[in-house]
């Protein structure tokens, strides 16, 4: 055994780059947030300009905050802490630079394409397919750079922060790729390969776990590094780290369907979504406990040290929103809260409180260490903290009250439960307007706080000399004990977990006998695992210690843990249940003109305010008509079920109003709906429908399984012209004159089609999961 000393110079340049990008994109993302919050209350702030309307800017806000602000912050934190935790410089300076500049280029292209209306309309997955490929490519660059660094590590064991980073990298890759599978129709447009319920399920498997593995696990890793560093205290409990890491990554993936509760989603998936969300409560709080209790013995420093203030508040908000999440996942609570501002409050407690404050704490801690100069003003950082905190509390409280108020009003009935108390949706909008105004104040205060941080950053680094960290480590050249393939899979924790999961699946999906065996097997494996753990504790922990010396087996096991839930939920729905995904009605495919109108609906981001999903709830049915069946959106690529009702549901709006109503409403919503906050869409009356793109679009739809006949472009043109002429004629009868080739005609055609379906033969209807 030989011992030698190695001098390591860390790559802190890329950390500084990501850190500054965090500040810049943070300002941009929050500024857009305040703007769109204002648009909801003051429709004039949409300026009648296509690229400044709410529907197009809301995706820009969410993408900017998630992928630009938190993304850059995450990369800065991961690169800074990983190098130090594994005692190795980042493997490749080239890959690091490629990662940084590639990511910024992606953000810039997103900031250009989203306002221009290029959108896939799946939330936090709106970017068009060429950018999707770039994101996947840069994520691979990140992964290679990270794992290559791990391979060159001088520190043999993997610290808990690294576990979370590994889970982040592999899971985000998996989610992102599956949810972005699509067939291009042109350079800038594509249709997702999943449709209807499948698309919804895949979308929320992705969407929910983007929250989990983009906004939570990497930040937990950052917490595990920066909180003990800043507090100069040991981490509270290693065994809590182990348990909450594995339970978090395993359970999180299953909870996606809680975004689709009370909808047409098959019932068993709704129940899985709800129960796994409830089971997620304790694992999430494990992270909060380890964060907060690490501060024990350092609480007195909170008075003087803004970094710790931010961390303590951030972890508290994490605890708050991970309690709120399971609560909102209870189906009856969700019946009230879904589609309302309560959800907006919930995500902002997480985004502003947890992500934003973790970012601020990390930035204030890193600044002096990366630029070798004390923070310009600690007092200013303290002001930032208090302004930001008041901002969050105002914001979140306003959204709670708003969401509950609107939810109660929408669900309220009178005259013995036979009629809606507020049949006019706009009455419920008027009631929450003051609260939406208060939200602008809260968000504005938070932005002011963040601008103080930006100012502090500028003043601290101006003229400062950058400094790169270095370390001297003693390296022992002893062989690392390997676990190998057999050791990875043949060991008590893995075997018992795998057995338990398999039996549980048999119990969930099996017929009478298999189900019984499954239940019995699940219970037996839990009991045996328990007894084995109690008697052979050493065996379990020795194996885990050895696992931690081996990055590759650790990564494989993490991947298995995160992949299980998605496979069990999605594969039956996509493959086995295809015929069952219909219920008793099937959608009538859109005509070419209606499809063109639908693409406009998608492109304008109408789904940001309008759902197309009447839930199996009496107030929903009283307000919007019969509940939505699965088959009624089966040909929808992408699905448009929506997640928020800033305006009413549109699932059955077809035929409800005359064409002239839609014409006037799109030109100036307030003419027919006094008090509406919807933007005007004057450009739809000037721009012409892109009929030339339809042949390629219809061909892709046909490939995806929508029953369109083979048609020549001339046939399509003729069909479009005929339908457009009919609509234009009906408008002319109402003294409204518009050329039939305008976009408004296509949009009206689409809106009048919504809710049109045919009954299906009982053979299909009888098959229920």
């Amino acid at each position, binding site marked *: 055994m030989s011992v030698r000393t190695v001098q390591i110079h860390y790559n802190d340049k890329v950390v500084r780059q990501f850190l500054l990008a965090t500040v810049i994109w943070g300002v941009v993302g929050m500024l857009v947030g305040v703007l769109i919050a204002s648009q909801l209350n003051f429709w004039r702030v949409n300026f009648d300009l296509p690229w400044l309307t709410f529907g197009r800017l809301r995706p820009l806000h969410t993408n900017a905050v998630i992928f630009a602000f938190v993304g850059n912050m995450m990369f800065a934190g991961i690169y800074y*802490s990983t190098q130090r935790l594994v*005692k190795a410089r980042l493997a490749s300076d080239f890959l690091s630079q490629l990662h940084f500049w590639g990511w910024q280029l992606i953000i810039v292209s997103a900031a250009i394409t989203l306002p221009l209306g290029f959108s896939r309309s799946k939330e936090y997955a709106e970017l068009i397919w060429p950018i999707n490929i770039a994101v996947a490519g840069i994520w691979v660059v990140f992964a290679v750079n990270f794992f290559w660094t791990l391979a060159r590590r001088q520190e043999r064991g993997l610290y808990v922060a690294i576990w979370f980073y590994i889970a982040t990298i592999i899971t985000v890759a998996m989610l992102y790729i599956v949810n972005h599978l699509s067939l291009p129709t042109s350079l800038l447009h594509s249709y997702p390969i999943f449709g209807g319920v499948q698309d919804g399920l895949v979308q929320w498997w992705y969407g929910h776990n983007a929250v989990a593995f983009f906004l939570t696990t990497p930040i937990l890793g950052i917490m595990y590094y920066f909180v003990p560093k800043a507090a100069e205290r040991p981490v509270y409990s290693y065994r809590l780290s182990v348990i909450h890491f594995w339970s978090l990554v395993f359970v999180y993936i299953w909870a996606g369907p809680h975004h689709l509760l009370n909808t047409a989603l098959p019932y068993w998936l709704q129940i899985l979504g709800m129960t796994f969300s409830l089971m997620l409560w304790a694992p999430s709080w494990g992270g909060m406990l380890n964060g907060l209790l690490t501060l024990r013995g350092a609480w007195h420093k909170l008075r003087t040290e803004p970094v710790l203030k931010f961390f303590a508040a951030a972890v508290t908000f994490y605890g708050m929103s991970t309690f709120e999440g399971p609560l909102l996942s209870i189906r009856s609570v969700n019946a009230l809260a879904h589609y309302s501002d309560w959800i907006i409050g919930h995500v902002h407690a997480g985004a502003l409180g947890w992500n934003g404050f973790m970012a601020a704490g990390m930035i204030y801690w890193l600044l002096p260490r990366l630029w070798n100069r004390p923070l310009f003003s600690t007092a200013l950082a303290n002001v930032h903290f208090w302004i930001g905190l008041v901002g969050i509390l105002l914001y979140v409280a306003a959204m709670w009250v708003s969401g509950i108020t609107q939810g109660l009003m929408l669900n309220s009935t009178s005259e013995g439960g036979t009629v809606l108390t507020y049949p006019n949706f706009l009455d419920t909008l008027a009631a929450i307007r003051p609260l939406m105004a208060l939200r602008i104040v809260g968000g504005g205060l938070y932005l002011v706080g963040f601008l103080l941080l930006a100012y502090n950053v500028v003043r601290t680094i101006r003229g400062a000399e950058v400094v790169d960290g270095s370390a001297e480590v003693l390296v022992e050249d002893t062989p690392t004990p390997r676990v190998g393939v057999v050791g990875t899979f043949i060991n008590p924790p893995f075997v018992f977990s795998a057995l338990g999961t398999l039996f549980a699946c048999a119990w969930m999906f099996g017929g009478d006998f298999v189900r019984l065996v499954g239940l019995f097997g699940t219970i037996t494996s839990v009991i045996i695992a328990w007894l084995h753990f109690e008697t052979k504790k050493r065996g379990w922990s020795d194996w885990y210690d050895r696992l931690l010396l081996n990055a590759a087996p650790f990564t494989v096991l993490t991947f298995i843990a995160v992949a299980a839930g998605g496979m069990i939920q999605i594969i039956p729905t996509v493959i086995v249940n295809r015929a069952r995904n219909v219920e008793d009605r099937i959608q009538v495919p859109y005509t070419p003109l209606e499809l063109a109108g639908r693409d406009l609906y998608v492109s304008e981001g109408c789904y940001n305010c309008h759902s197309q999903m009447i839930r199996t709830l009496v107030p929903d049915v009283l307000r919007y008509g019969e509940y939505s069946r699965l088959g009624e959106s089966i040909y929808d690529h992408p699905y448009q079920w929506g997640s928020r009702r800033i305006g009413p549901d549109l699932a059955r709006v077809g035929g409800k109003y005359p064409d002239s109503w839609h014409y006037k409403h799109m030109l100036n919503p307030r003419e027919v709906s*006094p008090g509406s906050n919807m933007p005007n869409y004057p450009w739809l009356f000037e721009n012409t429908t892109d009929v030339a793109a339809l042949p390629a679009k219809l061909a892709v739809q046909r490939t995806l399984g929508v029953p369109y006949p083979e048609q020549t472009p001339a046939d399509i043109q003729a069909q479009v012209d005929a339908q457009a002429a009919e609509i234009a004629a009906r408008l002319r009868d109402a003294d409204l004159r518009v050329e039939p080739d305008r976009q408004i005609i296509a949009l009206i055609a689409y809106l009048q089609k919504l809710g049109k379906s045919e009954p299906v033969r009982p053979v299909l209807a009888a098959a229920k999961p």
Partner: protein
Amino acid sequence: MSEHPPKSPREPGEDPVRPHVFDGISEYDKRLPNWWLATLYGSIIFSVFYWMVTQQFRRINDGDQVTAAVQEIRAAKLASSGSYDDSSLLEMSRTASVLASGAATYQTTCVSCHGPELQGGIGANLVDATWLHGNKPTEILRVLNEGVLTKGMPAWGPVLGPKKTAEVVAFVLSKQPAS
């Protein structure tokens, strides 16, 4: 491999930390709080039972449940909707309190198509001499209740309920020119 002692001086009697230190970060290995374990196990046990109750012992699905509830509501409405005839609607059109609430409903629900002065717009003119679908009060009530879907008039009966619908009819009747 580097081994540093933990940076912060530990108090006597404090829990031991794990042997290895990462970049100056050491870790306690404290036992898990009981309330936390109770939450973890409790939620798992609840989920297993909830799955069994909802998946294995449930007989009715959400869709059927909601359909049944809505049918009941429809029946209740039908039972109470027969209570208006021509004379009672005319009587209502002379009752100030009825007209006030009828006007309020008109302002939120009907005004966008029929105009603030009932002069029409997207919808028909309600104060001219022609009635497209019958001029008896009960005929007007039927139009409100069932709509004229081909012309874009929605069925308001299911939305507003019988009382409000009748009030709107009374309000419209009260606005008729005195011919």
